[in-house]
């Protein structure tokens, strides 16, 4: 009955009037920005992150979580209506969703995505509530060596799941780790890579890096080629699926939820993998696979559920180990640290109200999405018709205010411009930004645990291999690396990403 009393605590926190309001604002803002073409969940959160800093820790994390769900939902709306997915996880939805929209079934596709996401979100929230606490007890047994190995595995996974060249993704991780070193060395107090500027003694501002690499770089990409978008708005007459369509939805949604829940826990961006895996499964199981790519309902229902379930369960490694599973969770960690919370297994015992409040708010956020967004779809669609040249100056103003509000440090704004340029150059060189951000967040943690483990083992590097959990994690990472470099898997992986790009 522990679970029930904990959930009761969580709901009492999350359903306070203020927190409900913040969750609502978060969901609305998240959808608002997320629906903008070419801006995915990560960029949305990076932009909106600063406005949550003035709030109390619980409220701010609840609002951020709301922004996350909203942004994901907004992303799938854009994917379905204008075939412009903001993030690779909704790229899969775009394949069949856009085709459905073209055939006048846009409303059905949107409703299917919303309902599937809600179901998956509910189930996955429950899973988080069940599995997170026992996992924290395991996590408490983790020493420095285990943490180091676990983070290595997370980084390797992010490499394996990134688009395009594995080598480039590896280089991006290393570059991210190096950027994470900027600032003062914790052990000796020596300044590192600060170029003699005291303003960078506390390290590069995380928000500035995220906004630059994800937000600004994205705007620059969109400005390369300003063309008109075609919005599929004409045919949103019937929203709710009829009985036949409901029947078609059930299987894919259930399977998608299962796949997403499992893959979401994996460090390194499981949600992206989840939506693709679900699409493949549905295509294999379908009686008429030829329908896929031409507007199959299952091709929307499955991946969307998987995507959302994965988004939810990716909170498990964050809440139990303090290790982000994907760039969005990296942003969450950044937010927690700014709020003075040290993410990790101690959060459950030290701040039960925060922990369970976030879990309860996940479900509330998902509920709000369905209740609000189905009626509001007309509004979001209108937003898609607002020309881009009106939107991005607003986004730039928000980014500037947001980044400055974190520390009132003008140097953070210079860092935004610098990382915007760096992000743009890297995207031109076809390098994915996600591994860089993950490396940036994990860099300091990785180094600290490495150094601590070495001191504990009196300088013996075999400590990582003689401790069983650590050895297993390192072996797994090695196996993943070997796998992605195997010619056969590599070819398959390329196919996977080309298909999701199409």
């Amino acid at each position: 009955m522990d679970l029930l009393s904990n959930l009761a605590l969580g709901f009492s926190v999350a359903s306070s009037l203020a927190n409900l309001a913040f969750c609502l604002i978060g969901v609305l803002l998240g959808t608002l920005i997320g629906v903008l073409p070419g801006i995915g969940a990560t960029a949305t959160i990076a932009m909106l992150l600063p406005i949550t800093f003035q709030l109390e820790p619980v409220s701010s994390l609840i609002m951020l979580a709301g922004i996350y769900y909203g942004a994901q939902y907004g992303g799938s709306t854009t994917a379905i209506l204008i075939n412009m997915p903001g993030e690779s996880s909704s790229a899969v939805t775009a394949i069949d969703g856009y085709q459905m929209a073209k055939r006048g079934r846009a409303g059905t596709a949107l409703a299917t995505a919303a309902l599937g996401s809600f179901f998956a979100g509910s189930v996955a929230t429950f899973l988080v509530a069940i599995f997170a606490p026992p996992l924290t007890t395991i996590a408490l047994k983790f020493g420095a060596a285990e943490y180091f190995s676990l983070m290595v595995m997370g980084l390797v996974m992010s490499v394996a799941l990134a688009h395009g060249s594995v080598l480039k993704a590896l280089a991006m991780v290393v570059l991210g780790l190096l950027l994470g070193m900027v600032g003062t060395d914790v052990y000796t107090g020596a300044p590192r890579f600060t170029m003699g500027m005291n303003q960078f003694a506390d390290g590069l501002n995380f928000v500035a890096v995220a906004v630059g690499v994800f937000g600004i770089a994205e705007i620059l990409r969109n400005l390369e080629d300003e063309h008109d978008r075609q919005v599929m708005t004409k045919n949103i007459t019937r929203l709710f699926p009829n009985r036949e369509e409901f029947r078609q939805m059930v299987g894919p949604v259930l399977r998608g939820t299962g796949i997403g829940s499992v893959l979401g826990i994996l460090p390194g961006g499981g949600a992206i993998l989840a939506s693709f895996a679900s699409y493949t499964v549905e295509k294999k199981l379908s009686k008429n696979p030829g329908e896929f790519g031409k507007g199959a309902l299952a091709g929307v229902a499955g991946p969307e559920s998987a995507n959302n379930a994965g988004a939810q369960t990716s909170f498990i490694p964050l809440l139990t180990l303090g290790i982000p599973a994907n760039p969005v969770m990296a942003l969450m960690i950044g937010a927690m640290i700014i709020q003075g919370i040290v993410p990790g297994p101690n959060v459950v015992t030290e701040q039960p109200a925060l922990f369970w409040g976030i879990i309860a708010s996940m479900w509330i956020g998902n509920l709000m999405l369905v209740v609000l967004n189905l009626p509001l779809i007309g509004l979001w669609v209108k937003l898609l018709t607002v020309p881009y040249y009106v939107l991005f100056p607003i986004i730039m103003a928000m980014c500037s205010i947001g980044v400055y509000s974190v520390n009132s440090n003008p140097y953070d704004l210079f860092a935004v411009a610098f990382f915007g340029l760096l992000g743009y150059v890297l995207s031109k060189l076809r390098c994915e930004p996600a591994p860089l951000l993950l490396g940036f967040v994990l860099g300091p943690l990785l180094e600290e645990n490495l150094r601590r483990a070495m001191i504990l083992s009196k300088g013996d590097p075999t400590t990582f291999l003689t401790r069983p959990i650590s050895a297993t994690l390192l072996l797994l990472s090695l196996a993943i690396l070997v796998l992605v470099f195997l010619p056969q898997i590599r070819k398959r992986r390329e196919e996977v990403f080309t298909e999701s790009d199409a």
Partner: protein
Amino acid sequence: MSTKPKDQTDIAAGLFFMTLGGFFGWQALQMEIGTSLRMGPGYFPMVLSGLLFILGAVILFKAFGRADDEPFGRIAWRGILFILPAPIFFGLTVRGLGFVPALFITTLIASQASVRMRPLPALILAIIVTIMSTLIFSYGLGLPFRRFGPWLPV
């Protein structure tokens, strides 16, 4: 133009990573490396810089003998010219000019990044954004910004 195929993007990427690796490594040289038991501040950065340099070299090496599968595409020069200075301008002036004028000019600068933006709509947009942001962030959320700074003769 040589006839041998090569992936221009990857050549650039490889060189870019090698440069960065070299730069970080050079900077790390000035720090104490330490031993693997008591790692100095430069130990881990040095290892990473080396790794980045090697990865860059491998990317460069593999770029030869393979055609560029995706063209480099257009570069958003106008975007770079106007988008990037916007936050810098805000950073330089938010204390001196104050929140309201700094934000107004920042938005105006950013709006010039698009060829489609006409002067009058840009002006109107900047005014609306400034008013809304001042209401939301300064009055609503109570962020501690000076609305008008000491540089102004007010």
